[in-house]
């Protein structure tokens, strides 16, 4: 019986992926495709953030910085050093992973609220460096004219091409995180979220597992950043502000944290659509987004599809 429900799950997932692959056949509107691409980027980011926030319970306010590290790495390598996209993409992922480890090591033993502050500070430092180190990052002007990516000879040009590329990265992200969280590693992350001291006495080396969860989440942020760089062809520091980190957190919470890996995607869809629909209202749109979040938290504290909520 268990096998049956498992099979059904895989069938559903296969069907979902097939539908997603077919989307560009029916949707030709560039505007809608571009919104889908934005959703894909946030989906990759939120899957990674869910590992940090939903599984391990670490509230990171600096996720946009790792996203930015990925984006700037690809931008600089492709514009100045003639890297191909695939090589730049891998470099972005690795660099974001390394940055994640570097931040996670000193913070492995600090308490929740301090962790929050340190990641907040790191996010701001990253943005300020990207703005002020003009020779390297060209400051607020950003890095422009990032070449179109080529993957093994296939040029990625149209919105639909980018959609497939992004979807590919998203699927890899999902399958990787699924594989990790289905084993004792995923359970160890959850144990840390639930009760760190008890996790310790279960034989879980909690500092190592925290570093692991955090840096793997950052790795995928780096991939998302790399995709953003070639998709936008421009990266500027304003892509990686604190608001971006907050938006990702909101998406994960609204969608639902924890075991249901696809739940955060519901948050991505709701928040992206809301942003687009209320785009004309300019600043007031944050008001509306805030309202959506409050409503979701009041009516469904565990998120739209979530299974676990914050500890009361």
């Amino acid at each position, binding site marked *: 019986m268990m096998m049956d429900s498992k099979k059904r799950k895989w069938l559903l997932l296969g069907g979902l992926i097939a539908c997603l692959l077919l989307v560009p056949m029916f949707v030709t509107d560039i505007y809608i495709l571009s919104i889908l691409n934005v959703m894909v980027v946030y989906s990759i980011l939120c899957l990674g953030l869910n590992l940090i926030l939903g599984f391990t319970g670490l509230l990171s306010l600096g996720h946009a910085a790792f996203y930015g590290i990925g984006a700037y790495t690809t931008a600089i390598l492709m514009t100045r050093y003639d890297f191909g996209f695939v090589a730049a993409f891998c470099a972005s992922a690795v660099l974001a992973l390394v940055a994640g480890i570097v931040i996670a090591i000193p913070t492995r033993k600090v308490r929740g609220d301090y962790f929050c502050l340190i990641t907040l500070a790191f996010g701001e430092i990253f943005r300020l460096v990207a703005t002020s180190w003009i020779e390297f990052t060209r400051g607020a002007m950003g890095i422009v004219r990032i070449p179109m990516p080529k993957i093994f000879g296939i040029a990625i040009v149209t919105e639909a091409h980018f959609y497939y590329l992004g979807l590919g990265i998203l699927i890899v992200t999902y399958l990787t995180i699924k594989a990790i969280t289905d084993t004792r590693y995923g359970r160890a992350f959850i144990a840390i979220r639930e009760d760190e001291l008890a*996790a*310790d006495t279960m034989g879980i080396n909690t500092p190592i597992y925290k570093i692991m969860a955090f840096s793997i989440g950052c790795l995928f942020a780096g991939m998302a950043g790399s995709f953003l760089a070639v998709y936008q062809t421009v990266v500027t520091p304003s892509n990686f502000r604190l608001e971006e980190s907050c938006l990702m957190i909101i998406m994960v919470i609204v969608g639902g944290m924890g075991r249901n890996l696809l739940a955060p995607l519901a948050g991505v869809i709701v928040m992206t659509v809301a942003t687009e629909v209320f785009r004309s209202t300019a600043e007031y749109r944050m008001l509306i987004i805030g309202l959506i979040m409050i409503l979701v938290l009041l009516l469904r504290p565990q998120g739209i599809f979530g299974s676990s909520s914050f500890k009361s």
Partner: protein
Amino acid sequence: MPILDTRDVTKQFGGLVAVNQVSMTVNKNEIVGIIGPNGAGKTSFINALTGIYKPTGGQVLFQGKDITGFPAYKIAKHGIARTFQNLRVFSNISVLENVLIGAHCRIDNPFHHIFLRPLRSKKIEQQAYAKVIALLKNVGLEEKKESLAKNLSYGEQRTLEICRALASDPELLILDEPCAGMNSAEMDTLADFVKKLRDDGQTIVVIEHNMCFMMAVSDRIIVMTEGAKFREGTPAEIRNDLEVQKVYLGEQEVE
């Protein structure tokens, strides 16, 4: 050779000596009880053994190996599992996952195998699953394996916590006040369960206030007071010891 051998274990918090040169041994397949009035340092002693505190003096030998000052996760790997005085089950996840987490350090699944040898990784996870299901069946929680731990009754949560500790195949199981908050019927069931574990070959240390329970389960009792070991003997000896009664009379009635 005793399984556990502590030599003059001491834990000081600044000027306060919480545990003062406690030496004790635990032999294989026996239940050792530790009793003592509130604040006698029983839990501090256990915390010093299991790596939650670092002892400030003395030595802890486990199966002949010096494990003094090891971090908690390493001590768990060496084979000491414990429960907590104030329940520490993982409340927002299922009973099954709670026990699987308990088995964490016995699931030999290196990280790179997830990607490089996925079939082996899956097989090992499935073996762990089967083992945990058998364990849950044994304690009568199998039907509730999908319920969230917080939805279990208090007694069931206590059982779950012991079950989670057993999942790591411990050489030594330490129960910290397992009867807290239980009625006498539940206590009897627990006493039977603990004795059955011993008969199956488990070595156990129990800390408990409740004298009836301790007299019923312990093979040997150690009395602690003011951080130090005060007496050691069989339940009958301890019961008839006038000095022990005096220690207790200051705090509570002798039952």
